[in-house]
């Protein structure tokens, strides 16, 4: 059966589908609300039926009766397989190395995949004070693989972060390993323009694919530094009709997140 690609889909749906495809069956995935959660559920309903979804609030094996509105939504608890305490979640799951994939967002990201979600401007006299790390720093440090979801804008893809909240490859070239972080670091950035990955040697980000309708030049223009482009850079594989159907009809029929 050849794949039938969807013709009608949103950028948000493209990003969800791309994220879902990064997840492998059996993975233990720490998800947040929004795109990560939708991607994980989509993966479960397509190629990864035994994906383990774990919420930062310590819940594993959730079977939510509705689409959860926060990582602490009561619907993720009722009918779940178990609950860890806050400290256990970070120590016994993340630090111990049991999380295969973690998702994080970014207010700013640099070429080594380091991320700022703390502050725009000076830390002591901020222009915009953002929420801060929450679980992101631990996820970036300890998950075997980190997926970054972010809008692609010049003010976000910056030469220098205003504040480093969550470590990517730090200054590249093994500087991450040097401080002793056992997690694999950022594996992929799914932006509103394309999919970016990291050179395993230098730790530097490169464009792997651009979303349908986007040009390489557009991506370069939306990035503050001179972004490397893979010699094999191609168009991102679009969502299939089936993926879009599952998303719209099964996962988010009310359009709570899809229409955001």
């Amino acid at each position, binding site marked *: 059966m050849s794949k039938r690609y969807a013709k009608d889909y949103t950028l948000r749906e493209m990003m969800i589908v791309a994220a879902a495809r990064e997840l492998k069956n059996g993975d233990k995935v720490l998800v947040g609300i929004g795109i990560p959660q939708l991607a994980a559920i989509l993966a479960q309903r397509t190629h990864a039926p035994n994906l383990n979804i774990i919420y*930062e609030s*310590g819940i594993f094996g959730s079977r939510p009766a509705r689409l959860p509105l926060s990582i602490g939504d009561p619907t993720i608890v009722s009918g779940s397989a178990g609950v860890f*305490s*806050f400290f256990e979640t*970070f*120590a016994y799951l993340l630090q111990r190395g049991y999380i295969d994939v973690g998702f994080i967002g970014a207010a700013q990201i640099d070429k080594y995949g380091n991320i700022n979600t703390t502050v725009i401007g000076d830390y002591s006299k901020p222009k915009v004070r953002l929420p*801060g790390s929450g679980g992101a720093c631990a996820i970036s440090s300890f998950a075997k693989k980190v997926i970054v979801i972010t809008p692609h804008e010049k003010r976000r893809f910056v030469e220098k972060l205003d504040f480093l*909240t969550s470590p990517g490859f730090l200054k590249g070239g093994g500087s991450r390993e040097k401080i002793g972080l056992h997690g694999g670091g950022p594996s992929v950035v799914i932006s509103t323009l394309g999919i970016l990955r990291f050179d395993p040697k230098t730790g530097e980000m490169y464009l792997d694919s651009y979303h349908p309708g986007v040009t390489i030049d557009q991506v370069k223009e939306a990035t503050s530094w001179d972004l490397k482009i893979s010699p094999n850079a191609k168009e991102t594989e679009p969502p299939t009709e089936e993926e879009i159907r599952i998303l719209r009809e099964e996962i988010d029929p009310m359009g709570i997140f899809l229409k955001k």
Partner: protein
Amino acid sequence: MEIEDKIMSAKEAIKKFVSDGNLVCFGGFTHAIPFALGHEIIRQRKRNLTVSKETPDLIVDQLIAAGCVEKVIFSWAGNPGVGLLHAFRRAVEKGIPHPIEIEEYTHFTLGARYFAGAAGIPFVPIIPSVLGSDLPKYNKNLKTIKCPFTGKLLCAIPALNPDVAIIHAQRADKEGNVQMWGIIGSNKEIAMASKKVIVSVEEIVDSEVIRRDPNRTIIPAFKVDAIIEEPWGAHPSYTQGYYDRDNEFYLEYDKLTRTVEGMEKFLNEWVYGVENRKEYLKKLGVERILKLLPKTYSSIPVDYGYYG
């Protein structure tokens, strides 16, 4: 010595156990945030508090707006699933209503402070997650240490032992044994770490209810100083099995409190304008309350056995 009476009103408990200048630690992680107790702190106009909570949520935002707070210890200061905390931002960015000090952590490192506090050790080492970040530049409590076994660099996190822990849970008996289900967060650790512990519960139940399921107890009676029977004491957050999160409330709060005036209006209406949680609930109204009631989904009893 008689069994001391730990059952009291929120008003009595806050009056008795929270003093100006205290380090007050709030429990709850999205689930079971002690709003009723927090509002009582605002009404009693406590001042110069240091408030600790991983996710300050709307309650610490309100404490800041009301001028109770000198310093916030936190790890993620947002409106969960909604956006930012406007009073927190105004205080940090513009010093409104007055400048506040912040002491910032990651979830893991603040959880580690609570753990070390509960365990009675001066610090706990962690794999140096946070050392890759810029936080240690601004937070001198994130130190480095060498592992005496592996020689590897670790991050050392000092214990936190608050003056008062403020917690909401499903139920307790009148001796003060507290039981909870759903997301537990750091409630056990902050109770064991703190000098005084105030707990509001949905229900005070017969001792027999607690004792038929001892594994559900998260805080032993001897660590609890005050028990307040405060149904819906966690609204607009939720109590698992009792009511749902009032997401509309969180969204309305977000809109309303973008201005100082809106924030004032909120406090006057929902905090200063009511005497206690009962009046708050009257104001909330029957319709809204009914909308938040979940259907039943109960556990199946387990047998502990009678060994006589």
